[in-house]
């Protein structure tokens, strides 16, 4: 029996089970690096923003709280996406762990998808944790402010049902709502695009530092490229060659400004479902393109 393959396990060309095994192992690896300590920094930041700037008007105060929360969510998710992805493949090659994985019946494409999926799981869990903390603090602050505002109206003798309804609407408009969750989702999509780009870089980069530096450079270029495109190509008749340049630019440097829903949401704008679907589609397209490109490089890589 020892010299026989185990029964009832036919080879599958594509196996979600193998991808899940790689993804969960990647997640465990990153979690056991104690990355979740960042949540303490996040909580501290929100407490400072939520409870120390109480001399501002309530609109300003809640807006500041949202600005700081979304800024921190963007920062942490992008660091996890770029750095997390950049260290994974080079470390597996260096430690020869990759040899033991690819000498098992694991196609190289599954390895890449599994690693990327593991990083995305980490980003998603971090964002959900931050979102829960943020929503709880915002809700708490929102109720405190509402109580204070109603008390103020009562002390001024203006506590009519209309005035109370007006102030309640005003405070709630700046409080917890579904648009905030849409903004968090847009941060996740941006991080996913950057993670898949870093994955592509790490398949041919010679050092982790290179991947991290270029990854962050792409982050900044990605936010400015739509402006540059408008400046150089805007206002003139778009010809085939210019279209080609635009498409090449958009593929090489992902247009991250597309995923920026945060500014609008913080100002109180609502996010239509069609916009969410559109950016989800664009992010998926970027993920597919970068993963395929990463696979093309990685499938030919001599280990």
């Amino acid at each position: 029996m020892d010299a026989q393959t185990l029964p009832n396990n036919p080879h599958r060309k594509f196996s979600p089970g193998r991808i899940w095994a790689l993804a969960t192992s990647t997640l465990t690896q990153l979690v056991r690096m104690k990355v979740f300590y960042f949540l303490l920094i996040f909580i501290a930041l929100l407490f400072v923003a939520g409870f120390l700037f109480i001399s501002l008007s309530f609109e300003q105060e809640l807006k500041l709280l949202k600005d700081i929360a979304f800024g921190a969510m963007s920062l942490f998710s992008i660091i996890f996406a770029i750095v997390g992805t950049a260290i994974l493949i080079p470390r597996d090659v260096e430690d020869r762990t990759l040899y033991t994985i690819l000498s098992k019946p694991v196609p190289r494409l599954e390895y890449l998808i599994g690693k990327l999926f593991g990083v995305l799981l980490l980003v998603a869990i971090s964002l959900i944790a931050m979102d829960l903390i943020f929503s709880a603090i915002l809700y708490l602050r929102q109720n405190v402010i509402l109580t204070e505002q109603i008390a103020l109206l009562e002390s001024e003798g203006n506590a009519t049902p209309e005035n109370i309804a007006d102030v309640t609407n005003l405070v709630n408009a700046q409080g917890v709502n579904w648009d905030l969750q849409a903004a968090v989702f847009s941060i996740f999509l941006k991080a996913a695009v950057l993670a898949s780009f870093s994955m592509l870089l790490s398949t041919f980069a010679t050092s982790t530092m290179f991947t991290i530096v270029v990854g962050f450079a792409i982050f900044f270029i990605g936010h400015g490229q739509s402006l540059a495109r408008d400046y150089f190509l805007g206002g003139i008749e778009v010809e085939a060659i210019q279209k080609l340049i635009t498409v090449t630019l958009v593929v090489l440097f992902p247009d991250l400004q597309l995923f920026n829903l945060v500014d609008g949401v913080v100002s109180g704008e609502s996010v239509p479902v069609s916009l969410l679907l559109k950016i989800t589609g664009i992010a998926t397209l970027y993920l597919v393109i970068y993963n395929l490109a990463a696979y093309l490089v990685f499938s030919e890589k001599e280990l």
Partner: protein
Amino acid sequence: MTEDSTPAVSIDNITKVFPLPLRKGKGLLAVDKVSIQMTPGEIYGLIGPNGSGKSTTMKILLGLVTPTEGHSRIFGKDSRKVESKHEVGFLPENPYFYKHLTGAETLHFYGKLCGLKRKQIRERTEELLDLVELQNARDRRLGGYSKGMLQRIGLAQALIHRPKLLVLDEPTAGVDPVGSRQIRDLILRLSEKGITVFLCSHLLEQVQEICHRVGIIFRGKLVREGTLAELISVEDQTEIILRDASPELLEKIQTLVDSENTETVRVGKPRTTLERLFLDHAASDRQNKE
């Protein structure tokens, strides 16, 4: 070809040239027209100095490196195809597995990669932890394992899906003599169970002790190949080892030899190896403690 006559490993005329950056048309010849066949259940040792092409040959067999010319098969299946990996287990030189996983988690991870079912993984994990004597360290993270323990858990992960071929690159590198002996005994036991073992090492004594056939590789070329008897026997000499022979008997034998016009090359007591001496002391020390 029937199942029985299919070679476990068939490496046919493999050449590998690694391209050199900035030197178009030139490359580093790592493996030069190497052909090796292994029969099922055999222990084959590939020996050679560092940089001779041993590991590249292994990597080609495992589909980690693509040969410039030639092809290799594992039990008749093209070794570049992912399906062939169901038949093979690999332990690389100085393996560092995921340090964040425990011994049991490591085996679970590799079992999942091999497509084993949960129950099969559980059973195999227990069997293999017993086999490599790591039950006590099953819940310890690999970051705290010694080199010998890492090699043994590496061997266990290579065996998780019951492969018919085991490829071992320097399996005892950096392991102390006791650990090294345990790994060698394990290889012999696996061979007895019908598993083919392809072993790369530059520890010649170890290869000599366990391998049925040996190939010698130099600068990418397979320069000699054969059974141990073929390779290391000195054909014009004969050895007789006697226990408790009296001086009189030895004198009679010497007289007989002289009368037959035969040259005596050496007479003396056979020596044990330093390793054997060390292992005997370690064993008696353990017995005394018990």
